[in-house]
């Protein structure tokens, strides 16, 4: 099936298998920052932004991206360098496999959504990290939202 959508600010015309997943289509475009983790929408490593909302691309059919505004970590690195800097400066990562997903989820948050740092945990609970114990990731998001 033919789909048209905006990917990282650029218009894309693709012919995709109706059964293909957004994750595989995006990675197939050499945008390998979007990672496959659990494959069932639990771990968040594959998170992309679809019309501003975080979506697990491993359980999202590529066809549903039609006419949507889609962003991956590669695009956000250009669009929101301050968010990337916040993760870098706070060392909100170790092995890094969950990091793109953490960053994409954080990109969907605005200070208006959050009245205290505890609430960030609810928003970020869909992004698992096995290395850090989460504290530096929370610091990165808090700094970014300046809710300290």
């Amino acid at each position, binding site marked *: 099936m033919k789909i048209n959508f905006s990917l990282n600010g650029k218009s894309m015309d693709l012919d995709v298998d109706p059964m293909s997943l957004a994750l595989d289509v995006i990675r197939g475009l050499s945008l390998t920052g979007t990672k496959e983790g659990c494959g069932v929408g639990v771990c968040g490593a594959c998170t992309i932004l679809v019309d501003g909302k975080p979506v697990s691309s491993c359980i999202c059919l590529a066809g549903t991206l039609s006419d949507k505004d889609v962003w991956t970590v590669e695009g956000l690195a250009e669009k929101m360098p301050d968010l990337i800097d916040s993760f870098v400066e706070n060392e909100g990562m170790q092995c890094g496999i*969950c990091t793109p997903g953490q960053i994409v989820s954080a990109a969907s948050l605005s200070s208006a959504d959050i009245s205290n740092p505890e609430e960030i945990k609810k928003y970020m609970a869909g992004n698992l990290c*096995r290395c850090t114990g989460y504290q530096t990731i929370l610091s990165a998001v808090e700094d970014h939202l300046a809710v300290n």
Partner: protein
Amino acid sequence: MSERRIDAVAKATGAAKYTADIVLEGMAFAAVKRSDFPSAIIKSIDTSAAEKIEGVLGVYTAKDLPGGANLYGRRVFDVPILAAERVRRVGDPIAAVVATSREIAEAAAELVEVTYEELQAVTTASQALLPDAPAIHDKPWEYEGAVVSAESGRNVQSVDSHGSREAAEAALSKAVNVIDQTYATPGDHQGYIEPQACVADYHKDGSLNVWCTNKSPYRLRDVLSTVFGLDPSRVEIMPTVLGGDFGGKGSPGDGPLCTALSILTGRPIKMALRYTDDLLATDGRHASEIRVRLGTDEEGHLVGGIVEALLDGGAYAGFKPVVTVNLHGIIDAAIAYRVPAFFVESKIVYTNNQPKGHMRAPGSPQAAFAFESALDELGRNSGLGPIKIREINLLADGDENPYGTTWLENRGREVLSLATSQPKDLNVPDGWLYGEGIAIYARSMAAVPKTSLRLRKGEDGRVVAEVPIPENGAGGQTVVREMIRNGLNIDSDKIEVRQVSTSLLPTDAGVGGSRVSLGVTVAVANAIKAWKEMPPEQDMVEITTEAGSDGPSGAYSAQLARVAVDPATGQLRVLEIISAVDVAEIVNPKAHQMQIDGGTVMGFGFGVMEDLLEDGGQPWALTMGEFKIPNVADVPKLTTALLKGGKGVGPNNIKAVGELTNCPTGAAIANAVADATGVRIRRLPIKAEAIYWGLKEGSAK
């Protein structure tokens, strides 16, 4: 002050390349048909339907493997690349499909028809030792690397022990207060977010390039060259970034299978596991049943102790890399204490469950849960209380531990005091029961692993450090840069640290055992010295360090868990975990703190949620939906108290930290539950149901 991680920008922008991101020209994709039964004879394999699928390039079974090679392992070669006549666990690979895409390969693998003759399965460790238990391997002592003999008994992978059973029994028989209880922990998985993956590219000239989610590239090279009879100098393990490890990525993974398929097809082969396959078919933490008997005199001094551990090794022993094919964490159960007559035995058996290997401090989380729970029970039962019994029995400076070693210093009492003296600022829900529990852990850290590295002059006055270690996230490469920055007094942006393939450096022991910083720092310190003495016309220095010891030394941690329990439902809320950690110098404070926090969260997961749910020969936790690891909202308040000023090892005067905080947590939480409710939980993970029934019946199930 530490500088930010060397790998931070690449990881935060999606640029870092992991194994699953590798694409080679002409690459084909592999998937396997796995066993549906825990124990069965393969009667027939029909690959015809799979072969007819468009895009399938070939379907291979054990008889097709090149050169008749089939068995591999990290020490014991008992793991089949493809099961030949028999399957020994759900998930054993039986046939491999190579196709033009991953999806086609996976779909075709499901079309491979296998007929089985089911055999009685051995589904628990204790069942494996029954006199009439089926033999899972006919003659396990004949495998290369086996440490058992025909006299070892049926289904035994290995037995390790320390001390005299007779002396310990005699001491216990004279003890005034004794505890004799058995504690259990389930099969667990490392829970890294990156599933295992491999790309193998064999060339007609006999050379082989492999990208693999593997943290021990030199060992992987040796395994592959041994299995396929290849010249080790032609086997090149390529640099990759590891997406989490925690012991699981010491495994050769699908390196042997992908290599075989590349030899057979003449193409680069990629196989990336789905997470379900990773939960089903890799090597997690051994389930344990550990009986602990401890006895004290009238004043509470330990006079004797016996620890007997029975561990479920699963279908293969091949994922344990050490010479004993056992878990040293079990043997070291009493390493923090003065126990005059101590005996420990660790028996690992074959079952038809998933094979088990190394997971963050192999054996220690299980042993710490058992030993620290038993000591707590003894302290409470004898009236001394959980803190006093530890104070009395922890080793002091100059004391010999039960293994005959005297460490440079023993700071168990200090970390205990630090953990129990932190301020409390918590909200306990109304009507809930509040409790605190303590647990101690100590580990030896004298071993300096062999490694090698090279410093090279780059352009514009830059220094390039070529290292053999993959970056698994712990920050080893950042440590290298910081040492060079300090040692050569140059700016960080003039230093490049680069992992190179196994062909470009002589050796390395691999990442693991909390010793990366130690091994690397010894090599870097030597390299910096050589660099400073280097004649101007020379443009590089290469250093190889042999395995050695810089001890004897050790490090301690103490954890205090603060919990609340809803008496109506048994629901447990861990409010805070305080980690008091014994440290010397800290090379990179942020990375050090993340090891403490990440370890504590992993210990918390082990304590309250993680379980592969192995039952009847079938693991039931086959997605991250069922196999729960902590998310950010689950994590309790984490408090760290550093006990500074310790005597470290190596050129930087450091203590190992990576495995200090994931080991005591299970016991600390169980001890806190006992403190809050009087209910003693002797099986992890701690479930609300167990607390509820314990409250109801006055004792835990």
